[in-house]
């Protein structure tokens, strides 16, 4: 990958012109899809994902094709809702067209990570013997894929009205020099794009709301242990920023729905303490 990482030290600007602690533009929408119980669309830079949530509903026999999820056993009665996630990475999403089958190992890992992260945050015990089917579509990839998927899934679950403890928000963090470079002054970086992800060590961290409780931590590259703490701190801080952005989207949508009279209003808008 012809990424000139050495340029960073000159102006402290990254390849796309950001500072070390800046997120890319995040644009999110909820309730994009009328037919689904919950839906969302999320852009993090050029990474674009769509999420559709069906459920909580009785698990039908047709759901057998869904991969992911926790218990595969059909006849078994569970006391909690089953969160089954399917990730479809569109062939046109990356620069070179790459066809990924449904059994792709990377996709399966993404699915199980998202499923377990959400299952811990959703109040699944309120919906026994039911399934929450989350289907995620990746339309365009430019790094931080797992983080975007988690954020989109959270938004769609909120739209579906599934009770949950708090937002599960994710973002990525990295380090300015590679594992091999024994650079003491390596800066941590927030929100990696595809080019940076290829070259530099990075991790994905998801936290529960704006707390410091880490829900997901995935690191697929070699990173010096002394840099890990800095990366994690930057990542957790980024998650707080992401939560603010997502929260604003949800509140804005809620406010609009009350104004349009889509949902019944219990009290007048002025009495309501929306913020």
């Amino acid at each position, binding site marked *: 990958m012809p990424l000139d990482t050495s340029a960073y030290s000159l102006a402290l600007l990254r390849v796309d012109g950001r500072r070390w602690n800046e997120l890319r533009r995040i644009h999110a929408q909820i309730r994009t*899809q009328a*037919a689904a119980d919950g839906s969302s669309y999320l852009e993090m830079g050029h990474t*674009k994902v*769509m999420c559709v949530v069906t459920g909580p509903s009785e698990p039908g026999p047709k*759901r057998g094709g869904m991969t992911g999820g926790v218990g595969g056993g059909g006849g078994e009665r569970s006391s909690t809702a089953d969160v089954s996630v399917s990730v479809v990475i*569109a062939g*046109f999403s990356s620069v070179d067209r790459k*066809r990924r089958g*449904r059994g792709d190992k990377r996709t399966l890992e993404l699915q199980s990570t998202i499923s377990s992260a959400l299952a811990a945050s959703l109040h699944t015990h309120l919906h026994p013997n039911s399934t929450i089917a989350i289907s995620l579509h990746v339309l365009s990839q430019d790094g931080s894929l797992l983080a975007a998927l988690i954020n989109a899934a959270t938004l769609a679950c909120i739209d579906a009205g599934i009770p949950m403890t708090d937002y599960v928000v994710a973002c990525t963090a990295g380090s300015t020099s590679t594992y091999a470079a024994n650079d003491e002054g390596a800066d941590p970086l927030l929100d990696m794009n595809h080019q940076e992800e290829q070259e530099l060590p990075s991790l994905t961290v998801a936290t529960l709301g704006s707390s410091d409780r880490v829900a997901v931590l995935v690191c697929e590259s070699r990173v010096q242990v002394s840099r890990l703490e800095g990366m994690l701190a930057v990542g957790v801080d980024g998650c707080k920023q992401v939560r603010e952005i997502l929260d604003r989207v949800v509140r804005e949508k809620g406010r609009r729905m009350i104004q349009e009279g889509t949902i019944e209003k219990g009290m007048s808008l002025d009495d309501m303490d929306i913020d």
Partner: protein
Amino acid sequence: MASTQHVLLSPAELAYLHSSLSQTPPIRPDGRTATQFRPLVAETGILPGTNGSARICFADGTEAIVGVKAEVEATGRQEEEGDEEGEGGSGNGNGNGSDWVEMSVEIPGVRDDDSGTAFLAAMLSEAVVADGGLVGRLRINGRFHWKLYLDILLISPPLSYPLPLLSLTTHLALLATRLPRLKSEGDEDPFFDDDWAAATYLYPRGEKRTRRPPVTLLVMAVGKNIIFDPSKEELAVADVTLAVSVGEESKPDSEKQKRGRRLKLVAVRTVDPPSRLTPPGVPNAVNAAYGAGGRQKQTGPRPVEPEAVEGVWRAPRGGAKPVVMAALVQKTLEAGGVADEVLDALDGVDLG
């Protein structure tokens, strides 16, 4: 292949639906007229990373996204000869060139090797290739051609048979597809203009307007009525269901000035409607719960196929009559008909 999952309707409901659809004019559950399409929202150019993309949302909430990506591929020796023949015969795109277009369909909750999905993909791609115009356009020179990958995503759960939705979205995506402008000449290695603004449309518009990619429409017959764009419930009582692919024929010069278009039939496929799998109703005359049956018991073995009784649901049997098939195709193709209307509506979409 059943075209949709089972619809959970009782025989009485099916009979009601069938009789209201067979009236003149038919009464459809959603209040549309027989030839009315569901309203839709369409946009193109939503994904800058693709050569062309489109998204369509139907009013019932079903939504699809299609992305087109093109790659340069070396043309094999024998393929090339075959291609020249194909062009001479004005695009009977069978065999040659069919692997220049690759389609994949993704439907949530359905395995990608599911027979229904494979059938959908085959139906969509055969219409595009059989139209003939496309393969010639993908040719760069004697040694190279564009390979087109069409990825079709159904975003929403499959509420109705998604064929018309996917076909219209594919049509729009192909219309919006642009390929880099070729700079090299003759048979040398292709070299392209890297200015995307100079890229040419695969289906040119304006002065050099040519034929457009075909659209595949779903048509069904109930009784004597022909109904377009059936919903899932309507399909459950269909006598015959047909997927009709309609292309546009290039006009002879004498007709160039005239408004309107000449439509041609590209492909027809029968789709097995789920109505064949529905359970039949039981007429009161033989229903033991209504006190019948005592007399019937002595009459020997029950007939395998009970006689049709007015108002009692019976799944349609047997194939389609040629007259009905012809009427379905005729009705689709007629000037000012549904295909015309759909193509007109898609013309209005801004291709950015």
